[in-house]
Structures are given as structure tokens and as C-alpha cells.
């Protein structure tokens, strides 16, 4: 036995050796990016439940010789001319662990299950007590379509632009759902941008809120809304599912799961299911989803000028969605002769409940006796439905 040759073979088959060959420098850069994302998640607490998994997935898929994720398998999966076009059997047979995780993203299983958990954790009472909140949820989708238009101007294709635009919906599962269908090669960049900006909402929104509203408007106190009966809360998810899914069938999976989760919460006879969906299932799916999304951040896809454009367009989308919601709030303030505080419009950008909390904080800064949280929750949950409708529209056009 030649010890020197054995050691040399061992070295040559290691990831360390592979790191210095050919194009693998990109993997090294991605490993650093993965560590930076981990730092943001752990130290800065940027959406840690998701960013931790995304960052670690990025590290795992960029380990040279690791074989956990194979971009070439998914390229073949998406190539209509390939013998393995849409062949999950091929992925199962030849894929690594993260490829198998990724099947759940590709089939939209994870985003839908996450939406079920979100539904089980959401109280639609504020929306039911003040249905006009839905208008603010609609107004706050402005950033989605403005960023879509901006992305086309910057040279992205229609499908890619639609996936980038949905970042403005401030709704991670919806962004992943749409991107995995329309532009899977951009999934890593879009997911990281969406979740990072969602974590930065307390920094992004307040300057826009102060710029678009006067101190007097921010001081407006809103009156308590009516109490919503339990029966109304039970009928609501059934009604929304029927209505929205019939209007835009492409949203049936997302809205259906959101409302099924909410029905579990509200029936009062499915507490065990509601508890499982809110906690155990949500946590398990979050682990699988975040790791799988992180795995798509392979150097060849991520280290491109497009990623920088996505980062810029993402923040523009967030800002414009906030502005759209605030403008909607200003219109409602005017029409109701000052009974609506326009700040609640900014909560129309989904991101439940962070955006509503920001509206509460800003309202209280202007008037310490102001309690906008419950009023802002209406537009906030309306934003979830609004972004699902926006995604359904984009999917029906570009899908």
C-alpha cells in the first residue's frame, strides 16, 4: 500500500481540493454569503426562523463534492427537450438530500402548508368588523405591479419580472409559490430579498409613513369596531375560498390552504388540528422549506448582476407597496372626514403582524393614547389575501 498515493487520492477527492479547481471559487463566495446570512439571522435576528435554514441550506448546497443539491438535475427537470422533463422519479433516484427536500417547493407543497399555518394563526375578526380594510390591502399591492414593470424595464422576462414583483406583496410563501412556478432559477435571490426586507419593515416603513402623512393625520384616534360573532368567523373562510378560488382558480391552492387553517382555528371543534398546523406542522415545513430554498442559492445562479437588480427592485417594491397602502389610507381619511388614521394603510403589505405593529408604534409616537393595532390588523390580513390574488393574476398571465 502506497501511503503517499492514498493520501493524495484522499486529498483529491476532498472538497478542499475541489475548492481550488475551475469555477468552484463561486462556491467559496457562497459559503461566505451563507455565513453572513447566518450572522444576520442569529445576531441581528432578521427572520431567524427562516433565514437560519436558508443560510445553512446555502452552505450545504455549495460544499464542493457534497452532492446534496444538483442544479443540473433541476435544469433537466425544467428542460422540455430533456428525457427527464418533469420527472420526479429521476430526481428521487439521482438527487441528493436537498434535491428531495426541494421537491416540496417545486410541487408548491411547502408554501401551501405554511399558508395553512398562517391561516390557523390569523384572526380575521378585525377585517370582518371593518370590511373597508380590504381596500387598503388592495392599495398596498401597488409595489407588486410597479416592481413588475420596473423589472421588465431592466430587461427581465415577463415570468421573471412577475416573480420579482411579488416581493412587494411582503409575503414569503406567496413569493416562493409564484417564483417556483415562473422563475425557479431566481428562487434563492427572491426568497432572501423577500425575507430580509420583511425583517427590515420597522426600518423601511417609518420614513415613508412620515413622508406621506402629516402629524395631525398620524394623531387620529379610531373608534372601536364592532364585535364579530363566532358564526361569522366560521362562514368567512368558506366564503373567501369559494369566492376567490372561483374568481382566480390559480390562487385556489394558496387561498384554500390559508382558509382551511383558519377554519380549523375558528370551528372550535378542531382544536387539535389547529394546534398541530400552527406549531408542529408549521415548524417542520419551515425547516424543509427554508433549507430547500437556501439550497437553490448555488454560485452560478446567485452570483450574477440579476441578483443585485432583484435586491434593488425588492426594496423598491416594498417601499411602493407601503406608499400605495398609505395613499389608500389618505383617501379613506379624506372620505370619512378624518375618522381613519392613514397609517393603518401601510399595514396592507401583508407581513403579519409586523406591519400592523409598525403602524401601532408610529401612531403612538404621534399620539401616545393612540391604539391602532387592532385597526391595522384588518388591512394587514387583507394584504395576505390581496397578495394571493396578485400572485394568482400573474400566474394566470405568465404560467
Amino acid at each position, binding site marked *: 500500500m502506497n501511503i503517499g498515493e492514498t493520501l493524495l487520492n484522499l486529498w483529491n477527492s476532498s472538497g478542499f481540493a475541489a475548492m481550488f479547481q475551475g469555477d468552484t471559487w463561486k462556491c467559496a463566495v457562497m459559503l461566505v454569503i451563507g455565513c453572513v446570512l447566518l450572522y444576520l439571522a442569529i445576531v441581528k435576528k432578521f427572520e431567524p426562523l427562516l433565514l437560519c435554514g436558508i443560510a445553512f441550506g446555502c452552505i450545504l448546497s455549495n460544499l464542493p463534492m457534497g452532492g446534496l443539491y444538483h442544479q443540473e438535475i433541476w435544469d433537466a427537470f425544467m428542460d422540455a427537450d430533456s428525457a427527464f422533463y418533469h420527472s420526479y422519479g429521476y430526481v428521487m433516484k439521482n438527487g441528493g438530500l436537498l434535491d428531495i427536500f426541494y421537491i416540496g417547493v417545486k410541487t408548491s407543497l411547502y408554501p401551501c402548508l405554511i399558508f395553512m399555518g398562517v391561516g390557523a394563526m390569523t*384572526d380575521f*375578526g*378585525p*377585517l*370582518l*368588523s371593518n*370590511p*373597508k380594510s*380590504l*381596500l387598503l*390591502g*388592495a*392599495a398596498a*399591492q*401597488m409595489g*407588486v*405591479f*410597479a416592481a*413588475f*414593470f420596473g423589472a*421588465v*424595464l431592466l430587461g427581465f*422576462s*415577463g*415570468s*421573471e*419580472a412577475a416573480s420579482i414583483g411579488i416581493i412587494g406583496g411582503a409575503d414569503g410563501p406567496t413569493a416562493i409559490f409564484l417564483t417556483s412556478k415562473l422563475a425557479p432559477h431566481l428562487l434563492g435571490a427572491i426568497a432572501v430579498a423577500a425575507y430580509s426586507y420583511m425583517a427590515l419593515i420597522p426600518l423601511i416603513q417609518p420614513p415613508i409613513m412620515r413622508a406621506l402623512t402629516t402629524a395631525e393625520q398620524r394623531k387620529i384616534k379610531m373608534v*372601536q*369596531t*364592532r*364585535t*364579530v*360573532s363566532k*358564526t*361569522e368567523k366560521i*362562514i*368567512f373562510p368558506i*366564503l*373567501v375560498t369559494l*369566492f*376567490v378560488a372561483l*374568481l*382566480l382558480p390559480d390562487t385556489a391552492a394558496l387561498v384554500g390552504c390559508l382558509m382551511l387553517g383558519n377554519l380549523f382555528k375558528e370551528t372550535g371543534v378542531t382544536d387539535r388540528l389547529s394546534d398541530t398546523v400552527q406549531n408542529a406542522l408549521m415548524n417542520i415545513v419551515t425547516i424543509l422549506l427554508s433549507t430547500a430554498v437556501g439550497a437553490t442559492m448555488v454560485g452560478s445562479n446567485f452570483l450574477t448582476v440579476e441578483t443585485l437588480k432583484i435586491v434593488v427592485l425588492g426594496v423598491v417594491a416594498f417601499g411602493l407597496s407601503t406608499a400605495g397602502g398609505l395613499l389608500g389610507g389618505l383617501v379613506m381619511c379624506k372620505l370619512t372626514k378624518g375618522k381613519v388614521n392613514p397609517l393603518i394603510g401601510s399595514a396592507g403589505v401583508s407581513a403579519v403582524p409586523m406591519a400592523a405593529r409598525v403602524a401601532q408604534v408610529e401612531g403612538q409616537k404621534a399620539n*401616545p*393614547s393612540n*391604539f391602532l*393595532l*387592532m385597526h391595522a390588523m384588518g388591512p394587514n390580513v*387583507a394584504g395576505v*389575501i*390581496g397578495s394571493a*390574488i*396578485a400572485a394568482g*393574476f*400573474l400566474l394566470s*398571465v*405568465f404560467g
Partner: protein
Amino acid sequence: MLLASTLDDISIADAGLTALLGYAVVFAGLISLMIVITLLGKAFSAKKTAAAPAAAAPVAAAPAADAAPAAEPAAPGTAGQLKLHDVPPKTAAMLMAIVADETGKPLNELRFTSIKEVK
């Protein structure tokens, strides 16, 4: 025709039109939903107000000697009056928010009847 050009290479004009149409569809969808929810809410409010006099009738028929002084009737759909004893409204609001947070229940599912400072 817009839908004919919904290919990946979309022109700027079509992109603008798609964006406007998309925004309009979101508004149309949510406005329709708003109308449906408003009608649902109105139906429930009407049902509640119709049920209220029926429930009040037996009380009115009870002997006058047993009757307590009549309280101000609460507006339909409200959670009733909250009595504050030596507690400023701001502190009361904070306390209610804390209780809602600790119990994990939304404020509109909780009913506070009185808040009193223990001295």
C-alpha cells in the same frame, strides 16, 4: 391583444398594461369580497337586533319588585361598558393589551367589565 403577448419576451407597453390590469383585478377582487363581507355582517347584525327584543320580552314581564334599576341598553355589537375605578384609560388599554397578549386571545374575543386599582 394582451393575453396573446403574455410570453416571456413582453414588450414595455404590454408590461405597463399588464401591471395596470393586475392592480385593477386585485382591487376588483377585494372590492367584491368587501361587498360580500359587508352583506354578511349586515345580515348578522339584523339577526342580532331582531333577537334582542325577543330576549328582552320575558325580562319585562318579570315582577317589578325583582327588577333592578334598568341599565342603559348597550349598542348592538358592542362588548358593553367597562368600569374604571381609579385607573386612567391609557393604563386600562395597556392592561387589556397585556391580558390579550398573555392569553393569546384577540382583544375582540375578550370582555372586560371593570378594572380596579388594588391599593
